[in-house]
């Protein structure tokens, strides 16, 4: 399946991926409104240290540990698209997914709601917003390499 991959050698650590993630998941789809009048937790995690940074999103694992561990069934793997889908209406905020995700790619809601934020590979425009707007092509939306490739 197609996923977003980070190329750390080109990551600027600018965090625009976060900005566009929030915008993409807003009602208004407007950068300014999304940030000023909506409460959206970006689903991308940016690790940055000295001279090294990269963005990290849900890897949409084939055999996702979060799906296996979720106590409410809020995390489900879509058999067709391969996307690990999250239903916030089912979630109670037990953070079992946070305990389980080996990538640390699940975030608690930043506005203290009992929900999480996680990449859904928003691809309405053909490419997830983070990859589409990365200024240096440090995030690429592409087919996953097969083992051994």
């Amino acid at each position, binding site marked *: 399946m197609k996923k977003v991959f980070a190329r750390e*050698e*080109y*990551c*600027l*650590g*600018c*965090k*625009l991926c*976060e*900005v*566009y993630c929030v*915008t993409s998941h807003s009602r208004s789809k407007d*950068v*300014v409104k999304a*940030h*000023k009048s909506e409460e959206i937790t970006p689903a991308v995690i940016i690790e940055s240290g*000295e*001279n090294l940074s990269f963005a990290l999103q849900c890897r949409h694992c084939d055999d996702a540990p979060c799906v296996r561990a979720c106590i409410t069934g809020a995390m489900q793997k879509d058999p067709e698209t391969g996307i690990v889908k999250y239903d916030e209406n089912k979630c109670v905020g037990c953070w079992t997914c946070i305990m389980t995700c080996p990538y640390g790619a699940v975030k608690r809601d930043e506005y203290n709601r009992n929900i999480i934020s996680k990449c859904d590979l928003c691809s309405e425009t053909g490419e997830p917003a983070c990859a589409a*707007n990365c*200024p*240096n*092509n*440090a995030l690429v939306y592409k087919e996953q390499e097969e083992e051994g490739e």
Partner: protein
Amino acid sequence: MSLSLKNPEFLIERNYDRCINCQVCERQCANDSHYYDEEMDKMLSKDENCVNCQRCVTLCPANALSIRQYPLEYRKNSNWTGEMINNIYKQAESGGVLLTGMGNPTPKKIYWDHILLNASQVTNPSIDPLREPMELKTFLGRKPGKLEFDENGNPFPLPPQLELDTPIMFSAMSFGSISINACRSLARAATASGIMYNTGEGGLHQDLYQYKENTIVQVASGRFGVHQEYLEAGAAIEIKIGQGAKPGIGGHLPGEKVGDEVSRTRMIPLGTDALSPAPHHDIYSIEDLRQLIYALKEATDYTKPVSVKISAVHNVAAIATGIATAGADIISIDGYRGGTGAAPTLIRDNVGIPIELALAAVDERLRREGLRDQVSLVIGGTIRNSADIVKAIALGADTVYIASAALIAMGCHMCQKCYTGKCNWGIATQQPDLVKRLNPEIGEERLKNLIRGWSLEIKEMLGGMGINAIESLRGNRLMLRGIDLNERELAVLGIKHAGE
């Protein structure tokens, strides 16, 4: 020191209705011009640090930023302009030489803009390059006066030639003055576009040896990174005597830019200043130059053309004649608006002559002396668009060098702060976090696009003139007319005035 009298050059304007405190501007500014104030929960600016590189403006997702000239109105004075005054403040505080980067920005006459091109009407048909073949192929190198054949009727081989798909090359920019990612972009784009790029005097990074067929290796007064393998790693060798932005003086790469890779490539100790002497200490005459030219030819078995690069100065025509007789296969001339990674401001802005005049004079002189076929002529120093190229070739150039335009294609915003090493666009820097900002895949793509776009335009202009090969335009000054030029200027350029 007491109170600094320097004023900010630029003013950062932030539209707080739009600013979303994302801090992208802060993270992207190597000059610390932006910061987030937690108490105020607001982004604030330090105008005095801003160099107007436009990085923040370009990356701001909310379009909340604009940068303006600082509205500092000294009392009107045509003599003592604000810039003059500020420069004096700077020097009164530093006691140093004023430094700058890129090309001469002063409002002196740009002759390209006073030259107009011809087009066919009625009597000779124009050519549509989309329907008919149009040849831009260009060969650089010594051309024989006549073809000679051996006893079997086979022609003797030609002297070595550089083959270009279009009459454009990337001129010398050293690894050190620009980042490895900028070098990679140039090398890959040159390879993909069938043209040449030039290493500058910084040696050749190991990663770039693979682009040999499209590389001109430079030998300059500092001889940095010059060795047998290096000479063989180019399709041609260029001896650098002078550079348009700073004729008569050497180069200075500050030690801070000499990191691991630069030090290995230049073969100098880590962290030491790389000083290129003003002259080549072994060249004091045309004969000396001839020695170096032949030493290099000898070293590479006469397989590569050797070029000599000079800046356009007052006696450029006579000097070029000397270079031609010294055995150079290519002469390249850099005009006074040519760029640089670092130069004293006053040298950049006051030394040398316009490339248009130099080119016309050199071409004319070489023809007169019967030497024109023995050398190819490459010119550079603010080629800003394809029309400049067409005019240059009609004035007598074989091809042009571009550098500023290439840098702009890669993202340069002409802030002229290359010498600080803090290029926010990842071009003129060795700082790893900044170098990363130029993804060579993107750099290559943008450069390729520029070359492609310009080549298409050149074909259009050629077609309009009824010419189907760039070869037929070369030195064809009848295709040019002057406008707003006086008799002397027209005479030097060797062109008629518009309407004549």
